[in-house]
């Protein structure tokens, strides 16, 4: 059984979805939970079209149904979890009937998916940004983890929880410590012993407290605490929610360096632009994929003149600052990482080559890597701490619907495009049409709109003009836009920067808008 929650993998992770399709052809049931009836949902046995932001309600109602039907995995709960009693009590108020009202999903469908998930021999629960691009993203994630703990669908062959990562090395960025509270290998910066290990190896002091997420950085810019920015391979001038604010803050910096392949919107605001090579085909190194597989990237073509490898630029910068790190060599840098990050220790370049990539953790050169995590939870006696159930409340999206802003706008990707279009914009895709706002046919009738009509889309923060496209996968009251063509439709002029305080992610998935037909067509 495969449960895809807030993910349109058919378009956003097409080759992962090939594996899902193999499962379907082998008899696996697919359930898709998504406000839109996406091209992934079209493959589902059952599609649960929930209202944007009601995921926790749905998850807790599923949990109640599983518990009250006696389908929870009592043995696993007793063996490996904590906090079950409080959780059981908490979910009792999430009845199927109330959940139907709160989520828009028929009670019978919630019951069906609950029984299918709990009753499956093996079940994968996969999610994407539909879960994490909310102001309560972490609550959303733990609500799903609760379900996996309740049914024991974790840490077993074929059963697990699986966030599908959106970028080729976003997992690797985390692995390498490019998150505010971690050093490489997810070692916490506030753990003195672990930090001490790095300080010793690097011969320098490391700040003992965690840093900022990008959204926290914007707040710090507002407070004038952050005045200088070095931005590598990111285009926040287009990609941040509530773009007007982001642009204002980035423009107000005292000094900004942008290191990128392209002269992006962000680069236009920079004091210094450092042209960088394309990491995936002009440089040597590694990336980590969604399945924790570390794989080699290799230079396949020479980089253009005037462009330098990211590591060369950083090494040179260090030299100018008085630190001679020698000559950058991808393998040497990787080996240094291996000496400091236990989960990568066994992954030599030779082994990565031999195995076609390896999945962390891989503790030594005899270790085969791990195809799934959390197997320790099934070990008798239990190894390590118990996995806690979390009591989470359902909270509505911050940008509330009201008569002024009656339509829920959600955002996402289309198959042939990627983020702000910096890379994919150069692909001459026959699938691509002018960026348009997708609306349900029923709403179009109500507003007397035809396909191609231009509408003004307004949120509490901004306003854009976009042509209309019908999408019968949208329910009335739901609209869809992408970030792919900020020059055509600057979607982030509309979105809200309500941020999850723990993950730092903005609520890109829930904007309240109104639409008005443009007088000039």
């Amino acid at each position, binding site marked *: 059984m495969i449960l895809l929650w807030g993910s349109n993998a058919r378009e956003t*992770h*097409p*080759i*992962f979805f*090939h594996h899902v*399709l193999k499962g379907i*052809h082998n008899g696996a049931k697919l359930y898709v939970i998504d406000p839109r009836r996406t091209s992934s949902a079209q*493959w589902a046995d059952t599609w649960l079209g929930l209202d944007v932001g009601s995921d926790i309600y749905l998850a807790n109602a599923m949990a109640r149904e599983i518990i009250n039907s006696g389908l929870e995995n009592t043995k696993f709960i007793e063996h490996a979890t*904590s906090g079950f009693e409080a959780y059981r009590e908490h979910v009792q108020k999430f009845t199927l009937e109330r959940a139907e009202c709160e989520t828009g999903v028929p009670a019978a469908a919630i019951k069906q998916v609950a029984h299918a998930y709990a009753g499956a021999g093996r079940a994968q629960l996969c999610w994407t940004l539909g879960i994490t691009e909310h102001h309560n993203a972490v609550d959303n994630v733990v609500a799903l983890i609760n379900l996996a703990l309740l049914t024991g669908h974790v840490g077993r*062959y074929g059963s697990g929880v699986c966030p*599908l990562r*959106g*970028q*080729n*090395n976003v*997992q690797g960025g985390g692995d390498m410590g490019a998150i505010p509270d971690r050093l490489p290998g*997810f070692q*916490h910066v506030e*753990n003195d012993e672990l930090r001490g290990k790095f300080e010793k190896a690097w011969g320098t002091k490391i700040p003992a407290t965690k840093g900022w997420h990008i959204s926290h950085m914007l707040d710090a810019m507002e407070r004038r605490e952050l005045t200088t920015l070095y931005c590598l391979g990111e285009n926040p001038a287009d990609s941040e929610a509530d773009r007007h604010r982001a642009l204002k803050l980035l423009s107000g910096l005292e000094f900004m360096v942008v290191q990128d*392949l*392209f*002269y992006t919107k962000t680069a236009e605001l920079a004091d210094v632009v450092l042209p960088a090579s*394309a990491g*995936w*085909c002009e440089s040597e190194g590694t*990336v*980590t*994929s*969604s*399945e924790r597989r570390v*794989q*080699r990237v*290799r230079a*396949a*073509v020479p980089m253009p003149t*005037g462009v330098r490898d990211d590591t060369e630029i950083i090494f040179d910068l260090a030299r100018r600052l008085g630190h001679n790190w020698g000559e950058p060599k991808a393998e040497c840098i990787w080996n240094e990482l291996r000496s400091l990050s236990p989960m990568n220790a066994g992954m030599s370049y030779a082994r990565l080559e031999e195995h*076609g990539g390896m999945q962390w953790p891989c*503790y030594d050169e005899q*270790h085969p890597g*791990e*195809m*799934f995590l959390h197997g*320790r*939870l099934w070990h008798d*006696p239990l190894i*390590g*701490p*118990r*996995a806690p159930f979390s009591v989470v409340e359902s909270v509505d999206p911050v940008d509330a619907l009201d008569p002024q802003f009656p339509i829920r706008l959600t955002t996402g990707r289309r*198959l*042939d495009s*990627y983020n702000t279009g910096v*890379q*994919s*914009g*150069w*692909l*001459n895709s*026959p*699938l691509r049409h002018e960026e348009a706002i997708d609306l349900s046919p029923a709403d179009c009738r109500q507003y007397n709109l035809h396909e191609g009509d231009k509408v003004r889309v307004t949120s509490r923060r901004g306003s854009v003009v976009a042509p209309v496209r019908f999408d019968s996968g949208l329910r009335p009251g739901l609209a869809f836009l992408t970030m792919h063509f900020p020059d055509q439709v600057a979607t982030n002029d509309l979105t809200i920067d309500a941020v999850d305080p723990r993950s730092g992610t903005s609520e890109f998935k829930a904007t309240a808008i109104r639409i008005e037909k443009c007088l000039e067509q």
Partner: protein
Amino acid sequence: MKQTMPAPSQAAEQELAPTPLQPIPPGPVPQAPPPRERRMIGITIDGQPVSVPEGSTILEAARKIGIDTPTLCFLESLTPVNVCRVCVVEMEGSRTLVPACSRKVEPKMAIKTDSERVRLSRKMVLEFLASSVDVSTAPQFAGYMERYDAKPERFGRNADTVEQPIKIDNDLYVRDYSKCILCYKCVEACGVDAQNTFAIAVSGRGFSASIATEFQVPLPDSACVYCGNCIGVCPTGALMFKSEYDMRHAGTWDESRQQQTTTICPYCGVGCNLTVHEQDGEIVKVTSPLDHSVTHGNLCIKGRFGWQFVQIEPAEKQE
């Protein structure tokens, strides 16, 4: 005497909730369930005994002992469809020749892969195909024709062909059905074996059968999503990257000057392996290794075609 704190009992330690400050201790290395045991089946091929697991094909058994069997419509990642008949072998007790690519081994089978009858059949298959189809860009054909002494020209200049105008209706790939041997691989890759898009099928019957979109509409009007997985499996060059087609047309395509480097796709987090084909410092096409556990040779539109951004002129980039 020095006082020492009593060590917390193991049970008490386990009661503690995990904290991000402390690394989670390693557990046992996860194992996949052992594969179902398959009994070994012994057969003879060209007089040589060979033993392979039950469910293997004659082709797999032949390969195990180093017998090279020609194939056109077969690919490891696709379900065999037995249409090209170039892999046929003689099986003792069988009236007809059998396709090695799909026929499963049975105990005591006696197979001949190089008998007069097999050689004649393979030669005829190659001659029929090569007399009616343009096989000039099919990499395996020349070798097979030489090996079986195939002479397609013996059917004369008036032999019917499938020649037709090339279809160029988008910027990503071209379809030249004058080169199509109807091996069905593209249909399978577009269908249940990989992409599950079902944009193409075989239309028409007999000699006028051809691969087509619904009602022969141009690709941009069809269900095609431009994953290019059909190009990846095409054995004759009937389906070709537009980049390759243009270079061949201009006379600049030169595989001897090309290098292949396998790297990772720059887009989503699936980690698809991309084999970048480079010529004179430029990417000329992108494929994926058939034997990698992530892609099995398949890609999406972004992975296969989304590389232009690395080789646009600096002047263009500034715009």
